[in-house]
């Protein structure tokens, strides 16, 4: 028994990613066609060359036919997956493991979500199973907002100071997004502007929340030894870790809302698979699941990027800025991209693809480019105390 990972056995050889935003003129079909077309071209292959597909979508369709129909796939296996907001990453994981197993030579992971057709604000979620009516009906924003008072009290950071920290996180991600043509929001937002926004959930304003966007992204994976047939600069998969929490935090009084234990476990597994011992120094960048600003704050500690109780200071000091010690969310994150649930995990990988291969534009290039060659993507779903966590580590060198 053990989690061994598939380090260096599978490589990403082509990727595509749509602009994320309000695509009033496009449905999930068109978004998937756009993202997969770009990925096919990037790897120099056609849809027929791909042996199997994994489709991640939480609410835009059921079954593999959701992808097979718009792409006109002929006799291809398509697996539709869902794992809350980590759905896109789940598609990558399925495709990578399928290739690693030897079952297929080439597989594609597609993530998509058409969110803006609900007519409602925010994410309204997929169809829910009938219940006894006792489950809470809180928004995700409110659930994550509960991290702020708990963190503030535990580490003695006054609530107004913590509000500045949260604004600093949003401001950093807005800055990065302003430099990214694929982002939904491309406007700089100052800490002062952000602090002045009306609160909607606890101490969070709308600008502490990820946007609501449609989008799609796709990745093609092959065995590592075949990678150079398709690209000179493949990304090798170093680690894929996934943990589904048992919801203990919502029932266990020892959980204090200042950490996400599922992430800590998931990171430990991922670092072991990849052989990473000092993520702060070894990683060139990280794309993390900044669904709400307090989430990114806690993730910096849970992912081992800094000591417990110090993330608030590190964020203020700019450690995770584009030109900081360890750039976090260089593409702008969920903050700037919005969160089309099924697409986000694949979009994170797309930024690793661009940055490690030197394809990110000069003004958005990470400070570590050229000196480090590992990127981490982190994708979560659920709520504090009850979440699923995914972490991938990729690199552009083997070994």
């Amino acid at each position, binding site marked *: 028994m053990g989690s061994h990972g598939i380090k260096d056995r599978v490589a990403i050889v082509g990727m595509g990613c749509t602009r994320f935003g309000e695509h009033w003129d496009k449905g999930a079909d068109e978004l998937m066609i756009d993202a997969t077309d770009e990925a096919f071209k990037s790897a120099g292959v056609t849809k027929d060359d791909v042996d199997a597909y994994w489709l991640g979508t939480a609410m835009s369709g059921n079954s593999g036919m959701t992808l097979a129909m718009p792409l006109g796939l002929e006799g291809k296996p398509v697996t539709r997956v869902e794992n809350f907001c980590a759905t896109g990453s789940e598609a990558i994981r399925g495709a990578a493991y399928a290739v690693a197993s030897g079952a297929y030579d080439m597989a594609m992971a597609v993530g998509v979500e058409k969110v803006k057709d609900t007519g409602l604000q925010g994410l309204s979620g997929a169809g829910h199973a009938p219940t006894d009516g006792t489950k809470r*009906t809180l928004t995700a924003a409110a659930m994550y907002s509960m991290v702020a*008072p*708990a963190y503030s009290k535990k580490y003695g950071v006054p609530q107004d100071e913590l509000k500045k920290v949260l604004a600093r996180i949003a401001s950093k991600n807005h800055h990065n997004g302003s430099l990214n043509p694929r982002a939904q929001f491309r406007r700089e937002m100052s800490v002062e502007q952000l602090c002045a926004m009306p609160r909607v959930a606890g101490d969070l304003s709308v600008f502490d929340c990820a946007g609501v966007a449609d989008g799609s992204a796709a990745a093609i994976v092959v065995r590592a030894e075949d990678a150079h047939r398709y690209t000179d600069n493949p990304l090798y998969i170093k680690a894929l870790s996934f943990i589904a929490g048992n919801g203990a935090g919502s029932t266990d009084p020892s959980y204090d809302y200042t950490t996400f234990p599922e992430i800590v476990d998931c990171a430990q597994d991922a670092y072991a698979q990849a052989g990473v011992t000092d993520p702060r120094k070894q990683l060139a960048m990280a794309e993390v699941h900044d669904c709400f600003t307090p989430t990114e704050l806690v993730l910096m500690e849970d992912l081992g990027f800094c000591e417990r109780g110090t993330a608030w200071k590190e964020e203020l000091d700019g450690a995770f800025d584009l030109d900081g010690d360890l750039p976090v969310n260089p593409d702008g994150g969920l903050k700037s991209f919005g969160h089309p649930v099924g697409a986000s995990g694949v979009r994170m990988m797309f930024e690793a693809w661009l940055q490690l291969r030197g394809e990110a534009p000069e003004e958005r290039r990470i400070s570590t480019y050229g000196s480090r060659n590992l990127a981490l993507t982190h994708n979560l779903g659920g709520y504090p105390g009850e979440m699923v966590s995914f972490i991938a580590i990729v690199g552009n060198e083997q070994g």
Partner: protein
Amino acid sequence: MRGILSWGTYLPYRRLDRSTIAAVAGTGGGKGTRTAASYDEDATTMGVEAARVALRSAPEVEPGAVWFATVSPPYLDKTNATAIHAALRLPRTAPAYDAVGAVHSALGALRAGVDGAAPALVVASDLRGGLPGGPDEAAGGDGAAALVVGGDDDGPVLAELVAWSSTTEEFVDRWRTPGDSRSKLWEERFGENHYSGLGIEAWEDALKQAGVVADQVDHLVVAGTHERAVNAVAKKTGVAADRVGDTLASTVGNTGAAHPALLLASTLEKAGPNQLVALIALADGADVLLFRTTDAIASHRTTRTVADQIAAGGPIAYGKYLAWRGVLPVEPPRRPEPGRPSSSAAARATDWKYAFVGSEAGDGTVHLPPAPLDTDTRPMADAAGSIVTYTVDRLAYSPSPPIVFAVVDFDGGGRLPIELTDTDPDEVTIGARVEMTFRRLYTADGIHNYFWKARLVRAGGAGAEAPTTDK
């Protein structure tokens, strides 16, 4: 000897200042306050809260029947008393009956309970109102009262029923056709005249039955649907004015079907042993009940008195009151409204949903909701807890936004992230003490979704008494 074994009352937290009515409605209002049920309360939830207090004060009594009286039933065709039965985890063999439609039903329910062989839980609960600016809106109140009645085999009788007289007559003074939102009234003098005759006739008969005279009555309370008649009859009984109890008109308002038992309970909370207590109820006839308190009442303790609750209220703006009553529909958040709860899923989880019973693992870990692998149940409705962290959700759907929400750790184990009620957003702090209360979360497709919420422990709250300390 049969009589009252215990009582409990419930007054909702919110108080409407009657002087705020006229500015909006253009007319009406008056002096003092009235109680206002929260948007998540109805006759059933208030009835549960009153009954919890009554049963808590008489833990040795196991009711063999439930009677529930109200003029504002959450359901028709379906029995409401079964939800009260479920919330209290009463024996499966105890029947639960509604007595619904008229204020007078409350007296019928009490009579059925008193006349029965087994101890009975008799709950009366009501929401009273009328059109904005009207007299019923201002004079009405919301609340519930529960009486546990039975014989001295069932537990110590606190007040023995020594006489009950009734008079009945058909006359149309106050009426409402089914489906109508308000009652209509005939001119006042007509009802006053009829009720005076009916009341005094029953009064004299009751005194005769008990072999006493008016001077011997230590406490008199008069409840009724007609305020002038109530005051007139009280005067005509011959009982000295200083022995006539407050009708609670200036603080609570007239709680309709709940009012006779509410006034009786409030009187018993002040009565000493071996006193004669009289209740006159004027509603489509008259009922006069004479009780003699026993020695046992001296040592009886109730966890939440009427006086405590009157003192503990918090204000509500008239506009919000109108919204809660459905008179003034306000824009809901642009979020999906919840679907109806599944009847079959709810039926599998009755103890959890209605009685807030969790489960306990072999190592003592408490699970809320109950975990399928646990074998022991853990009743949590009476557990108090502390807030670990909290939020105010201005985005989520709620019948009355915003949602105030907290993670609660219970004394003795167990945690639940849960909605708070009767709590203003700026009142919440980490470490604040909360207690559980039975509420109606929302209604979808006509199904009322009952479950529990937490609320701050306030002076007069059921959790204000010493919490369990085995943490």
